[in-house]
C-alpha cells in the first residue's frame, strides 16, 4: 500500500494491471499471443490498449503499481512469475495475498516516463515448466504520450 499521508492528490488504491489469461487456449496454441487480455484501473487518466497485449498504462512518479492475473478457467493453474522492466523506472517485487499462495507484484514508479517504457510479463500455465511470454511488450506511459493522443 502507498504511504497513507501523501501530500499531493493521488488515487488511494494502487494502479492495478490485470492480465486475463485463457490458459486452455494458451496451452493448446503453445503461445499467449492470442489468449492474453490486459486491463488496468487507470482508463480515465489516459491508459489505452485495453483488451490487447499492448496495454499502455498511464503512470505518474510515485504511483504504486500492482500486477495480478485472472484465469478464464479457475480449474487451470495460472501464475504471474516475472516482470521484465527497466529497473530505473520500477522494481517489481513478488508478493502473495496474505494466507494464500496467489501471487501479485507491486512496484513504485521511480520517475515519470518521458517516452513509453516497455515491459514483459511471464506466466506459468498448467503443469508446463517453461514460462510463457507474449511476443509483444506492454508499456508504462507518462503525460507526454497522453497529450500526443489527444
Amino acid at each position, binding site marked *: 500500500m502507498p504511504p*497513507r499521508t501523501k501530500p499531493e492528490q493521488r488515487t488511494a*488504491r494502487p494502479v492495478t494491471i*490485470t492480465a*486475463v489469461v485463457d490458459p486452455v487456449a494458451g496451452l493448446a496454441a503453445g503461445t499467449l499471443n*492470442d489468449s492474453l*487480455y490486459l486491463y488496468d484501473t487507470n482508463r480515465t487518466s489516459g491508459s489505452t490498449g485495453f483488451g490487447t497485449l499492448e496495454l499502455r498504462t498511464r503512470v505518474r512518479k510515485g504511483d504504486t503499481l500492482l500486477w495480478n492475473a485472472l*484465469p*478464464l*478457467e479457475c480449474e487451470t493453474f495460472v501464475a504471474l512469475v516475472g516482470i521484465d522492466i527497466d529497473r530505473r523506472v520500477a522494481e517489481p517485487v513478488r508478493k502473495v495475498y496474505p*494466507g494464500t499462495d496467489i501471487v501479485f507484484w507491486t512496484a513504485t514508479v521511480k520517475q515519470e516516463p518521458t517516452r513509453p517504457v516497455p515491459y514483459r510479463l511471464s506466466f506459468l500455465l498448467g503443469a508446463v515448466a517453461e514460462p510463457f511470454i507474449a511476443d509483444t511488450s506492454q508499456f508504462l506511459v507518462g503525460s507526454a504520450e497522453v497529450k500526443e493522443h489527444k
Partner: protein
Amino acid sequence: MAQQHGIIVLIDVDNALKERSLDGNAYWFDNMKFLGSTGVGTGNLTTIVPGSYFLDGSQATEQVLNWLPAALGAVPPTVPRNYHAEQARQIDREALAGIAALDGSDGAEVGRIQEQVGRRAKRTRSSRSLASSKVLDVTGQAAGADAAETYNFPAPVITDITGPAVTEKIMYPAQYGSPDMIYDGWYWAATVDTSRPGTYPYTMHIQLHELVDRDGELVWESVDFTCESALEVITDPKRNAFTGSGVGLLPMPAFPPAP
C-alpha cells in the same frame, strides 16, 4: 454432452461506481473464440452457440452456459471465496496476541494494534457478497483510517438475466447452488435452445457494493447496474474439438503413447 460455455464479466468497479454506468466499464469473455465468438475482451461480446445438429444430422442437445462475474482492481477470485472471512479472523487473532503481549501503557503499541485491526462497516444481513464486516484493502490487509478510499471491491453479484434471449425462450437462465466455493457456492447458468438459429441479445443485472462514510460510520451500500451481451445460435454441427468430428467418444490409441 458438448463442452459447457463459460462467460466471465470483468467489471472496472471503481469507474463503474464513479460514472454510475457499466458503459465502457464491463469486459466480457467466453471460451468459444475458436468457434467464432466475437468481441472477446470487450464490452460487445457475442457468444457463438454452434449446434442445432449433431454431425450425423440428428437434433443436438441443448447448450449449457455459465456466467461468472469478477472485479478489476480487486483481490482476484482465485483466492478462496471464504478468504475475506478467514483473513478478517486472522487479523483479529494477531491483534489479540498483540494485546496479550502488551506491557503496561505502551501508547504507541496500542496505536499500532488499532491500525492493524482496521475498521468495520455496516452491511445488510442478507448480503452474500460481503463475507465479513471488516474492511480489507486490495492487497488483503486491513484497510485503515482511509478505508472509504482504499477498500477492496467485493465481487460483483449477478441479480438477474433478462432480455430477448429470455423472453423469446432461447435460454432459461437460473441461479444454482454449487459445491464450488470459488464462487461462494452460487452461480448463474442457462440452457440454450439450439434449434432456432439467430442472434439474441440479453441484459445482465449486476449489483456492486460501495463503501460510504455516513456520519462517521462506514456503511456498505448496493448499487444496481445493467450491461448487454448476445448469443448467436448457428447451424454448424456440434463437434468434438479434439477430433473435429462427432461429440461421442474420443478415439483410443491401440497402444498407450510412449512416455
